[in-house]
């Protein structure tokens, strides 16, 4: 169990860094997918099976293709010009991010959290289904509505002007 956690954690951090630093956009997306897939593995390690598979299905299956299509449509996949990768004020951005993570980690380490429950609580598909249909019905419908709205909006925005009519 120990070894598994450290391998996956290393994968996540390396993947995240590479996704941010690599020059070509398509490589960045592939590194992003490595991070998200290893994150899903972490969820499985933590016992949340349903979430792990949902994460793979949504991110590796759909969002990856979405981003890649966006890259192709905006012709970014051509040879990256030599130019600067980061915006001139990249130092400021990284500084703020470093500051934020620093405080977060400091507060986590300082806090005293009682030891957790040894065995992972039951998260079988049946209970999730039960919960979704009873307690969380309103959020479910809301998300359904939101997704359809997002889809229609995305289609209209991406539609070329002349066809918008």
């Amino acid at each position: 169990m120990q070894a598994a956690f450290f391998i996956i954690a290393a994968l996540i951090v390396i993947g995240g860094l590479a996704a941010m630093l690599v020059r070509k956009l398509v490589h960045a997306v592939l590194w992003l997918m490595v991070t998200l897939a290893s994150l899903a593995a972490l969820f499985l390690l933590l016992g949340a099976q349903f979430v792990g598979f949902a994460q793979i299905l949504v991110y590796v299956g759909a969002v990856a293709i979405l981003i890649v299509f966006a890259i192709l449509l905006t012709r970014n996949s051509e040879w990256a010009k030599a130019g600067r990768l980061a915006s001139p004020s990249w130092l400021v951005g990284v500084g703020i991010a470093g500051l934020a993570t620093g405080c977060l980690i400091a507060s986590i380490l300082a806090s005293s959290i009682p030891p957790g429950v040894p065995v992972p609580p039951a998260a079988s598909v049946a209970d999730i289904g039960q919960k979704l249909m009873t307690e969380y019905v309103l959020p479910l419908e809301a998300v359904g509505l939101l997704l359809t709205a997002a889809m229609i909006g995305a289609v209209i925005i991406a539609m070329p002007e002349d066809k918008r009519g």
Partner: protein
Amino acid sequence: MIPLKAYLVLSALLFGIGLAGALSRRNAIMVLIGIELMLNAANLNFIAFWRFHPGTEPLAGVMFVLFSIAIAAGEAAVGLALIIAIYRHYKTTNLDRMDSLKG
């Protein structure tokens, strides 16, 4: 047994990387990838807390993550559509050039 803190530190690190990327990169799509990373860092926290401190409402963490994944997918779709529309107007996705509010 991996303590809860390890997961929290990991998610904080991931969040930091996402934030650094989103703030520093010039390309709009890279900013979007940074945001995706930050969202997933948050999901990791939810599942970590669900695993170690289920508390009274056992499945709350899992539910939250499910909904957040759904919304993140919707958000990615709309975000990319925006980028395409902006690209069609500005002919570039370089964020520094997108400073004028006109048009």
